[in-house]
């Protein structure tokens, strides 16, 4: 199978490393970062591209850009792993439209286009007879979307809730463990690379909200947008609040929740019994799905990370290969 990768950051490089380390039978024929690109129908030397990138350089040459890769490279699947933009989905949205229009499958970890334009993209993929897969957009390594779409296919989902943001979970875990203030825990998360310089997207619950929108729109037959999510972040939490929770064998977690029938999407800090399966430590994610046939299921795993997120992308790639792509 031949793929083109747009974005050569944490996720893009994780995919490259997994392809190099394992015999996945995947050839990369196109690659681009923000400043450069490579197109090579015979297969790009990933080790060399990784080395260039790790030395701070661009992955390819300045005369090839992402749009060239989309339009000209010879690939079966476009892997879109550029940064998420929740305002207009660009540039990823354009990349994805371009590939689907060329009858190419698309696999993405990019939340923007899926949250903003899923119905359009789904129809475009269907019209072109190709797959659009996005497992990595929600909870990184956890195969939540696959489980809901395939394994739980006949079920009605009455409620879905969980920890969708590892950064917030890390901060809250640290506040509870060592009575750190919010600011102290955030500083620590930044030092460890769990939080961005501008943490707004995580700590205000936007990231978790976008993931809820993706699940609601793509699996639960809802038509929602980020503005429909009732959203409260964790910035005002105090160590005293965590101590008051602790006194009752509870703790506080940032929980994303969907109740399809009531049309409720909300992200807010909630009191949770410490023994509850959703109370996971550190940067882990955890999601409980309440269903009619299967009962309650809880998924726990790594919600982010280079290789972990690559795992979800590769799962989607192999899914497509096994069902669609002939030869490779």
């Amino acid at each position, binding site marked *: 199978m031949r793929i083109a990768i747009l974005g050569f950051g944490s996720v893009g490089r994780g995919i490259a490393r997994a392809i190099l380390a394992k015999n996945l039978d995947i050839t990369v024929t196109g690659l681009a970062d923000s400043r450069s690109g490579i197109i090579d129908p015979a297969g790009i030397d990933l080790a060399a591209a990784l080395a260039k990138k790790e030395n701070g350089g661009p992955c390819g040459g300045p005369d090839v850009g992402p749009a060239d890769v989309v339009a000209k490279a010879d690939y079966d699947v476009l892997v879109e792993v550029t940064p998420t933009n929740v305002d207009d989905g660009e540039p990823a949205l354009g990349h994805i439209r371009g590939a689907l229009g060329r009858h190419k499958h698309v696999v993405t970890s990019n939340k923007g286009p899926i949250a903003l334009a899923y119905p359009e993209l789904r129809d475009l993929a269907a019209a072109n007879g190709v797959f659009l897969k996005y497992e990595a957009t929600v909870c990184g390594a956890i195969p939540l979307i696959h489980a809901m779409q395939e394994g739980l296919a006949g079920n009605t989902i009455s409620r879905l*809730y969980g920890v969708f943001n590892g950064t917030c979970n890390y901060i809250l875990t640290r506040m509870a463990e060592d009575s750190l203030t919010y600011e102290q825990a955030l500083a620590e998360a930044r030092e460890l690379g769990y939080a961005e310089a501008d943490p707004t997207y995580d700590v205000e619950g936007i990231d978790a909200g976008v993931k809820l929108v993706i699940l609601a729109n793509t699996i639960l037959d809802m038509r929602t947008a980020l503005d429909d999510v009732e959203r*409260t972040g964790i910035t*005002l*939490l*105090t160590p*005293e*609040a965590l*101590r*008051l*929770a602790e*006194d*009752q064998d*509870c703790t*506080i*977690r940032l*929980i994303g929740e969907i109740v399809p029938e009531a049309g409720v999407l909300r992200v*807010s*800090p*909630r*009191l*949770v*019994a410490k023994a*509850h399966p*959703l109370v996971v430590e550190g940067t882990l994610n955890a999601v409980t799905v309440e269903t009619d046939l299967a009962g309650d299921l809880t998924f726990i795993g790594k919600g982010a990370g280079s290789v972990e997120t690559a795992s979800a992308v590769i799962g989607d790639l192999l899914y497509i290969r096994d069902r669609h792509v002939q030869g490779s």
Partner: protein
Amino acid sequence: MKLEMRDQPGQLVAALQPISAVGGNIIAVIHQRETPAATETLDVQIVLELPEGRLEKLLELLREQGVNVVRIGEERLLYECTMIMIGHLMHTDLSDTVDRIDTTGSAEVTELSLVMPAISSPSSARITIRSTTRDEMKRAIRILRSVAEQKHLLIIEPLEDA
């Protein structure tokens, strides 16, 4: 509320129909041996939820069925919900916040623990509300939410319902 009756043959079954007839909701049926010294008879307790104002009707129906009700325990506040509030709780009149729930008559604040770290920084409180029915609890939570919005307080609700 709790109904207690003698565990004589047929009494339990006879009690169930009237309860559902008045829209009651059985939460638990508990068999209880009174005191070891007492006779062999068992007491049956039925814990149930009853819509406002239906008790008289229920007792009448039970009498018709020949059910012998020994005691009625009005455990009014069956539902409990604990939340945490963060903000300038004293400056925004904490007793008013509590009053807004208590004045509903059907739900009340039964516990409050307050921690005030420093004069100007926000304080945190754990608040426990009890109510007679689940709907009244929902209403109390809605009231607390709107008070919190007015007073710029953060309310941390439990993951699970009351």
